[in-house]
C-alpha cells in the first residue's frame, strides 16, 4: 500500500539536497544537454544503494566510453529494447539471492533508464511485461522526443509538427504528422502504484517524485522531459528555460498517478504554445494554422487530464484500507 510505503517520506528542500553524485562529471554529453541534467537529478534523488540498467541511447553512450565510466553506482547496459527486461532480471536476482541468504538483505533500488525511443517504440513490450509482472523497480524515461543518439530521427514520442531527420519539413508533409504517444497514460493503464511526469526546471518536484518512486514498492514510472539543444535546435543555454515553458504552456503538464488517483499541478493561466514553439528551430516551419492546431490540442488534453483527476479514485477505498 502506497500510504504505508510513503509514511516516512520527507520532501527534499534546497537545503536538504543529497550530496551524493551517482553520475559523475567527465561524460561526453553535448553542451547544454537537458537529459544528462535530469538524469543527474534523478540519480541523486534515488541515491545509493542502487543498481542502474540503461538502454542503448544518449545516456548510455555518453556515460560509458570504455575504459572510462561516469557511473559511480553499479550499472549495466545490454541492448536497446530490453532495459525493463534486464531490470526485471536484476530485481528477481537480488530478491532470490536475499531470500536464499547469499547476500545480506537490504534495500537496493533497481532503476532502468531509457530514452523515448527505447520506451515508446522498441522498448514498449519489455516495459509492459515488467509492469504487468509487478517487479519492484523504477523505470525512468528520459524523453528528448526523438532518436537523438542516432542523429535526430523521429520516435512515437516526437511531438506533432516537430522536424526530425525522418519527419522533415518537406513540400508534402511538415514535420511529425502524428501526435505524441501518451506514455504516462499507457503506464497508468497497467495499474502500477506510481506514475509521474517531471521536468528538470522544477527540480525539487522532479527529485521528490524520484524519491517517492524509490520508496514505493512495485513498479514506478517516471516520465522526464529532457531538452536536447542539438536535436531541438535551440541555444545550448536554454535547456532549463525550455523545460519551464513546456510546463507553463500545458504542453507537458506535471502530474502524479498514485494507485490510480491523478494529482495534477494546476496551471490555470497557461502561456500560449507559440512562446514555447518559437524558441526551437525544429518548429520553425510551422504555419500559424498548425500552431493553432497544436494550441487546440494542448487545451483539450489538459482539460481531459483535469477530468481524469476529478473522476479518478484510488484502487482501494478508505474502508478497504482500514480493513488492512
Amino acid at each position, binding site marked *: 500500500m502506497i500510504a504505508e510505503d510513503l509514511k516516512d517520506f520527507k520532501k527534499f528542500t534546497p537545503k536538504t539536497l543529497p550530496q551524493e553524485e551517482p553520475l559523475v562529471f567527465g561524460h561526453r554529453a553535448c553542451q547544454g544537454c537537458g537529459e544528462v541534467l535530469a538524469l543527474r537529478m534523478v540519480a541523486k534523488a534515488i541515491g545509493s544503494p542502487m*543498481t542502474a540498467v540503461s538502454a542503448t541511447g544518449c545516456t548510455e553512450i555518453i556515460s560509458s566510453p*570504455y575504459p572510462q565510466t561516469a557511473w559511480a553506482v553499479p*550499472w549495466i547496459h545490454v541492448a536497446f529494447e530490453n532495459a525493463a527486461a534486464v531490470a526485471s*532480471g536484476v530485481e*528477481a*536476482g537480488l530478491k*532470490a539471492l536475499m531470500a536464499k541468504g547469499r547476500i545480506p538483505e537490504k534495500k*537496493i533500488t533497481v532503476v532502468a533508464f531509457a530514452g523515448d525511443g527505447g520506451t515508446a517504440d522498441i522498448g514498449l513490450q519489455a516495459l509492459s511485461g515488467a509492469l504487468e509482472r509487478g517487479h519492484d523497480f523504477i523505470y525512468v524515461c528520459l524523453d528528448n522526443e526523438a532518436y537523438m543518439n542516432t542523429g535526430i530521427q523521429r520516435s512515437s514520442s516526437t511531438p506533432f509538427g516537430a522536424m526530425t531527420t525522418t519527419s522533415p519539413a518537406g513540400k508534402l508533409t511538415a514535420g511529425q504528422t502524428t501526435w505524441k504517444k501518451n506514455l504516462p497514460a499507457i503506464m497508468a493503464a497497467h495499474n502500477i502504484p506510481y506514475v509521474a511526469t517531471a521536468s528538470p526546471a522544477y527540480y525539487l518536484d522532479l527529485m521528490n517524485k524520484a524519491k517517492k518512486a524509490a520508496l514505493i514498492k512495485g513498479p514506478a514510472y517516471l516520465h522526464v522531459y529532457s531538452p536536447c539543444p542539438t536535436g531541438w535546435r535551440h541555444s545550448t543555454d536554454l535547456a532549463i528555460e525550455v523545460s519551464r515553458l513546456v510546463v507553463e504552456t500545458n504542453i507537458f503538464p506535471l502530474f502524479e498517478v498514485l494507485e490510480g488517483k491523478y494529482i495534477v499541478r494546476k496551471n490555470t493561466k497557461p502561456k500560449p504554445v507559440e512562446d514555447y514553439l518559437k524558441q526551437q528551430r525544429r518548429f520553425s516551419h510551422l504555419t500559424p494554422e498548425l500552431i493553432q492546431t497544436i494550441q487546440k490540442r494542448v487545451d483539450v488534453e489538459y482539460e481531459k487530464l483535469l477530468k481524469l483527476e476529478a473522476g479518478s479514485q484510488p484502487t482501494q477505498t478508505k474502508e478497504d484500507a482500514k480493513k488492512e
Partner: protein
Amino acid sequence: MASRKGMEVSIAVSEAVKLANVDVISAYPITPQTHIVEHLSELVADGDLKAAFVPVESEHSALSAAVGAAAVGARAYTATSSQGLALMHEIMFIVSSIRLPLVMTVVNRALSAPINIWNDLSDIMAERDCGWVQLFAINGQEAVDLTLQAFKIAEDPRVLLPVAVNLDGFILSHVIEPVEMPDQETVDSFLPVFKPMVRLDPDHPVTIGAFGSPDVFLEVKKQVEEALIGSQKVVKEVWKDFETIFGRTYKPIESYKTKGAEILLVTMGSITETAMTAVDILREKGQKVGLIHIRLWRPFPFKEFFQAIRGAKALAVVDRALVPGGAGGPVGLEIKSALFDKKERPYVAEFVAGLGGRDLTVEVFAEMMEKAGRYAQTQKEMRYEMIGVREK
C-alpha cells in the same frame, strides 16, 4: 542414492535444473520446450525449488532477464527453441562478450519458414558464432548430465561464458528415457554455490556493457575468443570431475566402433543412437564402418576430432541444417575447413538430412555410409547431397 527410472526427458532436465539450485528462471513457452518451463513453474510453485520464476513476455526478454540476474550474481537459467532462439539472437552475442555465465537448454527445432515444430538443428546452427559454449546430448541421461555440467563450466573463473545444452525436440524432449537422477547431496559435491567473479554490487560498483570504440573493440573480442577456446580445457576438467563423482564419461568427440573403421559416420544429437544401430548391422555384415559424434561443438575440438578420425578413408557427415547458397551444412563446412591443410585426409561425403523432423531410419544411415564409401573410391567431387528428397 541415485535411482534409475523412466522419465520424460523434459521433466528430467527440469529436475536437473532444480538439482543445480538455480536462483532465477526466466521462461517464455515455445513448442517443444514447454514441458521444461511448465515443470519448473510447478517446482517453484510447490516450494521444491527456491528460485524466482519470471514469466517474461518474449524470448528476447527471457534471455535479457537471465542476463540481468546473472549480472547480480544469481545462477540464471532459461530454455527455448527455434523462433524463440532466433528472437534471442541479438542478445546471444552480447551475453558472451560481456562474460556473464548462464545456462540455456535449446530444445532443437527447425527454424521457420515454413513454420514447423519438429526437430532439426537449424536453430542452434544459426547461433554458431555467438561465442557460447555449445554441447549436444544424444539421450535423456546426457541431457541431465550436460545440464549439471553446464553450470560448472559456465561459472568457472577461467570461462565465464554462457553455455547452451542442446537436445532434440520431441525425439528427446517428449520421450520417456531411462534416466538415473542423481541425489542433491552428490550434485552439491560436484556443483558448488555460484561465486561470481564480477557482479553488480553497490559496495563495489562496476560498469558492465560499456561502449567500445575501435580503439578497444578488437582486444575485447580477442579476449572473448581466447576464453572460448580456453574453455575446452575446463570442459574436460569438469568431465573428469563428473566421471569421478557420477561414474559416467564424456568426451568432446565420442567414438563408436571406430577401431579399424574405414568409413565413419559423423553425427550430432539423438540421431546418433539410430546411426549406431546402422553401424552395428553393417559391422555384422563385415563392413569396416564406425561412427563419431560431436558432443562439444563450440569450441570445436580440433585435436580430438583429428584423433578420432585417424585411419578413416571416408567420412559420411550428417548435417541437420543447411547453409543455403553455400557449401552444404555447417558441420560439413567445419570439418572440411579443419581438414584443409592436412596432408592426409579422408574423403568427406556431406549429407544434409532430416530437416524439419523428416525421419532418419537405420536404412538411411546405411545408405549414407555406402555412398560415402563409393564416392571415396572415385573421389567424386561433391559439395553436398540432400537425402530423402521426394522428387514427386
